[in-house]
């Protein structure tokens, strides 16, 4: 299945990537697993380590590591928000 992944703010800059379309490996079903998969790319992608203070959304709602993913989903990773 294919999903869209977006990156924002300081994370987008450190990855030098605003977004990508990703074909998920067979059996990858959760947000936490996707994060682990991206982290495994190494280099700048180590910013996606589970220990780092990052937030995530699935289909534009805040999501947790156990959130399940489906074909066509829009996933976003970003730093804690600083609006207002």
């Amino acid at each position: 299945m294919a999903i869209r992944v977006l990156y924002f703010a300081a994370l987008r800059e450190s990855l030098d990537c605003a977004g990508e379309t990703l074909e998920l490996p067979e059996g990858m079903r959760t947000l936490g697993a996707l994060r682990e998969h991206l982290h495994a790319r190494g280099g700048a992608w180590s910013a996606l380590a589970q220990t780092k203070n990052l937030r995530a959304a699935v289909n534009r709602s805040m999501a947790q590591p156990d959130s399940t993913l489906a074909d066509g989903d829009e996933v976003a990773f970003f730093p804690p928000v600083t609006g207002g």
Partner: protein
Amino acid sequence: MGVRVQRQDFDVGAEIEALTGARTDVGACASFVGLVRDRNDGSGVAGMSLEHYPGMTERALEEIVAQAKRRWRLFDVTVIHRHGALRPGDRIVLVVATSAHRADAFAACEFVMDYLKTRAPFWKKERTPEGERWVDAREADDTAASRWD
């Protein structure tokens, strides 16, 4: 009325008038305006750029307003948040809440700001004499939001 995310400035008086002008049952109208400060974390701030997540931002703000309307007796709530390039003194955010009595309007205004600070996908990047820097999230904002749990 409602939620807006926009580059341009807003007129506080006009937004208050929009919620109160056409009716006579509003007894209280509370508003909050957030502005760009010229100092932060010990450095001068020459300006900032505000990034957001189009599509999610509006949704997050609408959800916060819906929660406020479930918690207090409100007639209306307006939230306007700007994005793009801003300078010290510029308005960033406006919350207006109307109700029959002040307690609901005051509380709703504070609640919307506390939740917006921790749940709406905006990120500030400041320009300082030392260069550009992303603003770090503050623990105090999490504490402020958690008092409504």
